[in-house]
């Protein structure tokens, strides 16, 4: 079904191996403003394997995009500081020389941005924007690059790609632009794809198409995808694993089903509860009151404590570490064991089908 599989393929599709492709340890991002540093992301560690799709969810301002950008070295050089390591195929992305980084970007690791209208250069034809990526990383002729770009356009589902090649971004619909973004990101068949809210601006029907596309790519090429979204629904449909971010930290990391069945962190639970489902029963929605604290005014203990209805004195005292939990789960909550939080399934039902977790 996937048109991508017809393309020349450097990476043979592999089954999910256990050798990590990307290994991030202690990622921290700090923004410097007027000589003061403020923390945007801290203590972020995770790893990804080939072909795996990992979701990263959280409210606006929780540090999802910053995490993605940090991996590609796309944060403003002057006003930000990045710590930790992020190894991909032996290279530490965070310590790489600019030239080395340039060679990796768009090649081994690439990124799709949320707003395709602004993310594409408005004054160059879309075809150009794809082929220049190829020409940057591959020694190919102009016409060969053009041919490849046209093929890519076709493979992401743009009809009549050779005609569309000369179109400018504003001449395309939102869904098409997003597909062009994807084509750019895939131009050099990267091993890691960071997708930063690639469907937020799109309609559900178009979103479904894009999600399918990403899933196929991952499957056919073994591309690892880090899927950033604030929409747990989307993540649950696409990803196998999900990380929840709050105020620059990962507060929970588990398999998607586990989280939805029974979230371990009150914040994750709150997020799930706030999603209005198509259940035609008019009732109040649960909400997580308050907002993500600004990086300048973080509480001393658990960062979620001011908004948490389960907070105890202990939560105010210490900043909880990310700790292991059975079934390969990680959580940053000292009360994770005591709480029986509501997920996407009513507790009654959860109890009924309790044992089915896998």
């Amino acid at each position: 079904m996937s048109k991508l599989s017809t393309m020349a393929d450097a990476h043979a599709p592999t089954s999910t191996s256990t050798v990590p492709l990307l290994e991030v340890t202690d990622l921290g991002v700090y923004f410097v403003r007027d000589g003061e540093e403020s923390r945007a992301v801290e203590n972020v560690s995770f790893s990804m394997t080939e072909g795996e799709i990992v979701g990263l969810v959280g409210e606006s301002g929780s540090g999802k995009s910053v995490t993605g950008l940090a991996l590609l070295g796309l944060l403003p050089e002057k006003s930000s500081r990045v710590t930790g390591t992020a190894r991909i195929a032996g290279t530490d992305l965070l310590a790489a020389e600019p030239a080395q980084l340039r060679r990796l970007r768009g090649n081994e690791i690439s990124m799709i941005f949320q707003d395709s209208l602004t993310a594409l250069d408005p004054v160059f034809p879309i075809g150009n924007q794809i082929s220049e990526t190829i020409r940057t990383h591959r020694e190919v002729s102009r016409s060969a690059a053009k041919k490849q770009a046209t093929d890519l356009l076709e493979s992401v589902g743009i009809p009549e790609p050779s005609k569309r090649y000369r179109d400018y971004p504003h001449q395309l619909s939102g869904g098409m632009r997003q597909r062009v973004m994807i084509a750019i990101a895939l131009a050099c068949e990267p091993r890691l794809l960071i997708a930063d809210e690639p469907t937020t601006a799109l309609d559900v029907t178009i979103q479904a198409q894009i999600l399918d596309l990403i899933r196929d790519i991952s499957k056919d090429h073994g591309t690892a995808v880090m899927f950033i979204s604030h929409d747990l629904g989307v993540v649950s449909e696409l990803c196998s694993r999900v990380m929840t971010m709050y105020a620059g930290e990962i507060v929970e990391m588990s398999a998607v089903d586990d989280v939805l069945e029974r979230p371990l962190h009150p914040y994750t639970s709150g997020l799930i509860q706030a999603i209005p489902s198509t259940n035609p029963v008019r009732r109040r929605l649960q909400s997580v009151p308050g907002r993500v604290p600004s990086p300048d005014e973080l509480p001393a203990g658990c960062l979620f404590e001011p908004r948490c209805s389960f907070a105890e004195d202990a939560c105010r005292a210490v900043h909880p570490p990310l700790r292991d939990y059975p079934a390969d789960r990680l959580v940053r909550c000292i009360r994770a064991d005591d709480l029986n939080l509501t997920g996407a399934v009513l507790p009654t039902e959860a109890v009924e089908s309790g044992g089915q977790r896998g």
Partner: protein
Amino acid sequence: MFGSIILRRLGAVIPTLLIASLVVFMLVQMIPGDPAITIAGESATPEQLQAIRQSLGLNDSLPVQFWNWLTNLVHGDLGRSLINGEPVRSALMRTTGVTLTIVATAMLIALVIGLAAGIVAALHANGLVDRAVTALVSLGVAMPGFWIGLILVIVFALGLGWFPATGGMSFFADPVTALQHAVLPGLAMGIVGAAEIARQTRGAMIQAMSADSVRTHRAKGLSERAIVWRALKNCSVPILTIAGLQLNSYLGATVVIEAVFAIPGLGGLILNATLQKDYPIIQGVVLVMALIVITVNLLVDIAYRIVDPRIR
């Protein structure tokens, strides 16, 4: 694609020129003084003045004078100078090229210096380089053109002898000499313009370099130099706009600069004509200047469409 714009613009040109010439006509009529007095000079007597006015058609009523001017214009006749009888057309032919040469040089200089300074400042935004460039450039705006002109003459012409101190000619007559003559006056006007362009470029580049599309370019692995070029294309519309708008002030500035450099151009022509109330010449110069402005605006409009596909 450009045909319709040109047609649309041409449609607007004629009324604009008509209004312009009417405005000038009224304006010049309001200027005190009488060309007959200038012509008669020290031998003036009332009869003498009357005779001169009669022969120049200055005794007709204003609407008649304007009408005569217009009907002649339709026949391609711009009239003759009241003062020295030179056909306006030949006066314009010999001066327009000269002025265009220095104005074009000024624009070129302004663009080169302005773009370079603006880009450098933008790439080092808020750093020391930026501040230095910005300060230098602001100084350019702050100095009157004739002041700069004179200093240039003293340093580069009289001091170093690199360029001629005075004079000017049309590029089409003798390109090399014309450019030699155009450098200093071009600089005198261009430095002021460069400051504006640098300002605009800096702002636009900072904005363009922080655009999401630049982030995409980076994510693709493009080199910084390639990215700067792409950003430049992105912000060419405001820069073009400023450059286009500047033409107007350059044409105005020629009035002063041509006096400083003794350049036989449109500015000197209109200045003298204004002082002598030489209506036909004033009308002719304004017409030509308005035409130049309109043409350049048209070119800018077309350029917009070339550099930015989003426009229409």
